[in-house]
């Protein structure tokens, strides 16, 4: 692989001190792992994972609500990722009810069209995903269809993280597919180096290269290394549809406090699709463990073992923060490593 070696050399040349960048995207992490990309980076260049998947940050209360729907006899449809995320008393794949993995919201609607039973779609996802749900709700799904709306936005979480104080992070690789839909204008307010990157190994290497360059040149702006799919304004049609159906509101994230304007809820005219209202289910706000230091772990200023919940109240079986849910989460990796010893 001449090319790969060439890139490695380019990075070797440009990296002159320790750099740590954070991506905030599960799909970036998967691509990095699959390509063995870290193995070709210069020793001084690190890429770490932030609170990057819409599933890991889904609070227990939302999983519990989904399970409650299933227990009430509803058909619960959702993405495969959510199946194994633990709520307070189990995960969706460990219960008896009728829980189905679907490719997207439209498949859940199709199920509803073919049954008399109630079908509840557990609607997770960031900006990338929320417009698809809006599109489905705008095309008159049947009366027995409803959703539990768990959508969240990236920029408010990043804002929260940055406001927690100093981070040992030199810059951020922005989530390509979120930006496909939402554009990247919203990130320009953050005074840190940022590059939007795609998901081929080359894309990621390019993103890293551009990040190092930006830092070296003392800039702190948003650059786009994924122009074949991303533009500054994103997919305006998609965003507009999203805001026809949803409006933003304050929600909590697993292991984090309530973050203002970081989530979506159905607008009043779409409330008939609100499964929580329909079945009178409440999302129990599992009392916030103020002790979770995920934000510090993510900012690189603390190790998982610095958290007093680690291995005690917070384990892979019963995770508290998102770092313990995600397979790539720092806390989970530490915990599994310790278990094996």
């Amino acid at each position, binding site marked *: 692989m001449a090319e790969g070696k060439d890139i490695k050399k380019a990075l070797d*040349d440009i990296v002159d001190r320790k750099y740590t960048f954070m991506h905030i995207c599960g799909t970036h992490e998967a691509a990095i792992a699959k390509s063995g990309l870290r193995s070709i980076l210069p020793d001084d260049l690190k890429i770490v994972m932030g609170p990057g998947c819409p599933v890991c940050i889904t609070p227990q209360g939302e999983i519990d609500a989904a399970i409650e729907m299933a227990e009430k006899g509803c058909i619960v449809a959702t993405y495969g990722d959510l199946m194994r995320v633990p709520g307070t008393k189990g995960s969706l794949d460990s219960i008896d009810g009728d829980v189905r993995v679907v490719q*997207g919201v439209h498949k859940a609607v199709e199920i509803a069209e073919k049954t008399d039973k109630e079908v509840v779609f557990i609607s997770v996802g960031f900006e990338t995903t929320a*417009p698809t749900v809006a*599109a489905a709700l705008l095309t008159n799904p049947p009366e027995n269809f409803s959703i539990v709306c768990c959508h969240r936005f990236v920029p408010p979480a990043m804002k929260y993280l940055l406001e927690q104080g100093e981070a040992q992070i030199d810059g951020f690789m922005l989530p390509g597919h979120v930006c496909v839909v939402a554009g990247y204008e919203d990130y320009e307010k953050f005074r840190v180096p940022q590059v939007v990157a795609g998901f081929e190994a080359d894309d990621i290497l390019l993103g890293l290269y551009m990040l190092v360059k930006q830092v070296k040149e003392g800039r702190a702006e948003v650059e786009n*290394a994924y122009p074949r*799919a991303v533009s500054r304004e994103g997919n305006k049609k*998609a965003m507009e*549809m999203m805001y026809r159906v949803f409006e933003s509101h304050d929600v909590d994230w697993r292991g984090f406090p309530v973050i203002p304007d970081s989530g979506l809820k159905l607008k009043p005219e779409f409330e008939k699709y609100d499964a929580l209202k329909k079945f009178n289910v409440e999302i129990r706000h599992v009392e916030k463990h103020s002790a979770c230091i995920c934000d510090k772990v993510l900012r690189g200023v603390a190790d998982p073992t610095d958290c007093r919940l680690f291995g005690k109240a917070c384990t892979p079986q019963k995770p508290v923060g998102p770092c313990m849910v995600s397979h790539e989460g720092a806390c989970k990796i530490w915990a599994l490593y310790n278990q094996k010893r």
Partner: protein
Amino acid sequence: MCIAVPAEVLEIKDGNKAVVDYGNLQQEVRIDLVDVNVGEFVLVHVGFAIQKLSREDALQTRQIFKEVYAAMEE
């Protein structure tokens, strides 16, 4: 944070649907969120096309790669 895969639009159908090809694999997807024509490329996420992919921009990325590689060769 979201798996999305490029695909070529083969056929536009009623009800905001299109048949796309991911590479020897065809599927019907929803195109509510984009305005596309047969022969164009789209990014598909959870069964919805979420954006068109333009050939020019794709080329532009390749251009950036090239510049990097060129820089190294200096």
